[in-house]
């Protein structure tokens, strides 16, 4: 039985600064101040932590490029825009332990000498935004933000509220949103570490990534590797919903079998399939429920963990109806900037609606797959590139006879 690490304070009645400090909080930050910026980044790099926002990029590498950037104006952005369908782990992380998340922000800002920190919370998460703002106020009042910003100034932390657009979780769109524009992604390079928010070197990290930081500093570079696998060290938060007895967020070490997660969430034995990784994820069928929940384990079954969302479907579920919902999501959330994605997601939704209604013509599946390939090849951001991933995995499963009841 795994003892939670990130969620170890779940169920604690009061998330106050005093309670957090009494429970060993802010030790990681103290360590950071002791060893300095370069050594802090080195610890994060050595720990093997990779981003939990979906892309899986090594966190220390990002930090190091901004730490050593030539420009003195640089930013840290906390990505709390969480809008991937089926994903709610960042909300639960913030609600459980807002101070641990903010301690991670302080360490990151100190390590990269950030001019300012922005916390971008999706507009629908009013409660989480209030918690983070209140925690930041408490930390400031207690003097914990003093001397973090360059020149020994106190760190300014600004909480920003998203406008209700999934695409603003994409890092360059998120920057545009903070700057006061439509949240339209930009092609990369340049990467955020070179030209991010306000075109300045920027580190942007997901909430769960940052929640790992305080322990990595206080317990040392080797700590994370006590959990998980060689290639996926650490623990992962999974959001489980759909046809399960106990939907919620579960923490497991990487590499735990998928069936263990299903058991924790009290999934019945009559599941037809899962959608793993959110709208841009893949369908997984019972034959693969022994899959290890690690990046390499998912890859070996042509699946993806993505943001760690798992939606369960029982035998009575019409998976083409689910696909139609996914098509609806992408058609609604495309920012409209590139033609293949703007038109493609709409056409894809129409074709999926036809399939769900049983009125799809001959060759509809092939057309969907072809369209998906075009979107993947010709879209500038991850939304268009992955808008057909789940649907294509369903078409593929059907051709392998996995949809037969």
């Amino acid at each position, binding site marked *: 039985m795994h003892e939670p690490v990130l969620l170890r304070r779940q169920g604690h009645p009061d998330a106050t600064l005093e309670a957090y400090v009494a429970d060993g909080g802010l030790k990681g930050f103290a360590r950071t101040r002791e060893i300095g910026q370069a050594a802090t980044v080195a610890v994060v790099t050595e720990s093997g932590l990779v981003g939990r926002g979906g892309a899986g990029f090594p966190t220390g590498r990002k930090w190091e490029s901004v730490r050593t950037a030539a420009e003195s104006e640089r930013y840290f952005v906390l990505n709390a825009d969480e809008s991937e*369908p089926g994903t*709610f782990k960042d909300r639960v992380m913030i609600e459980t332990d807002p101070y641990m998340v903010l301690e991670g922000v302080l360490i990151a800002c100190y390590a990269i000498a950030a001019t300012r920190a922005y916390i971008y919370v999706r507009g629908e998460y009013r409660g989480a935004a209030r918690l983070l703002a209140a925690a930041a106020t408490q930390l400031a009042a207690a003097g914990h933000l003093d001397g973090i910003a360059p020149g020994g100034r106190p760190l300014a932390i600004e909480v920003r509220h998203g406008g209700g657009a999934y695409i603003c979780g994409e890092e360059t769109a998120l920057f545009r949103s903070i700057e006061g524009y439509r949240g339209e992604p930009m092609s990369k390079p340049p990467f955020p570490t070179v030209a991010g928010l306000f075109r300045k070197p920027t580190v942007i990290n997901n909430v769960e990534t940052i929640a790992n930081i305080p322990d990595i500093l206080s317990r040392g570079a080797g700590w994370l590797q006590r959990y998980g696998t060689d290639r996926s060290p650490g623990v992962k938060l999974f959001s489980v919903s759909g046809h399960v007895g106990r939907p919620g967020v579960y923490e497991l070490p990487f590499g735990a079998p998928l069936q263990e997660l299903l058991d924790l969430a009290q999934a019945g034995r009559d599941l037809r399939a899962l959608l793993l990784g959110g709208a841009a994820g893949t369908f997984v069928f019972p034959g693969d429920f022994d899959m290890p929940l690690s990046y390499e384990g998912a890859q070996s079954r042509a699946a993806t963990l993505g943001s760690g969302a798992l939606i369960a479907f029982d035998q009575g579920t019409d998976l083409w109806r689910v696909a139609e919902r996914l098509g609806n999501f992408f058609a609604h959330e495309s920012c409209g900037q590139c033609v293949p994605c703007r038109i493609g997601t709409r056409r894809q939704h129409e074709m999926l609606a036809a399939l769900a209604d049983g009125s799809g013509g001959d060759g509809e599946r092939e057309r969907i797959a072809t369209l998906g390939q075009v979107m993947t090849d010709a879209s500038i951001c991850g939304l268009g590139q992955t808008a057909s991933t789940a649907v294509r995995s369903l078409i593929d499963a059907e051709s392998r006879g996995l949809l037969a009841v």
Partner: protein
Amino acid sequence: MPEDDRAVRERVRRLIDETGRERTQLLEVLHKVQAEYSHVPRAAAEAIEQEMNVPIADTYGVVTFYDLLSDKPVGRRVLRICEDVTCSLHGAAELAARAERAIGPEGEPSPDGAVSWTRCACLGLCDKAPAALFAEEPLAPLSETAIAKVGEGHA
């Protein structure tokens, strides 16, 4: 200029004073305008142009981009019903149909302007499906009774 337009401009100027006049504050200012007027009225966009130097076209470009902002009045309190994957397994479509009967056509404010309803994408409340927000706070799991109360103005 009609008297109420003048009042709107004055009010929006004050909102900008307390929020900040740099372009980066635009979304925060618009959130406050939306909360106050249930949409972003033309006079507000004019005040933003004067005070923040953001062209009116840009302001509406931003307003129409984001689901939580609108260029036409919505209800003072909006019921947002999630129609995404998990919630659709738990009766989202039936609840939307119920909202249509209890409150009226999607997006249209009730005659007294108090409420409106809309479908929306995943709210990150899938563990409490079927999920909704009412006046920006979670209302989950959403029930037919809760919708009826919203329709009758008792929520």
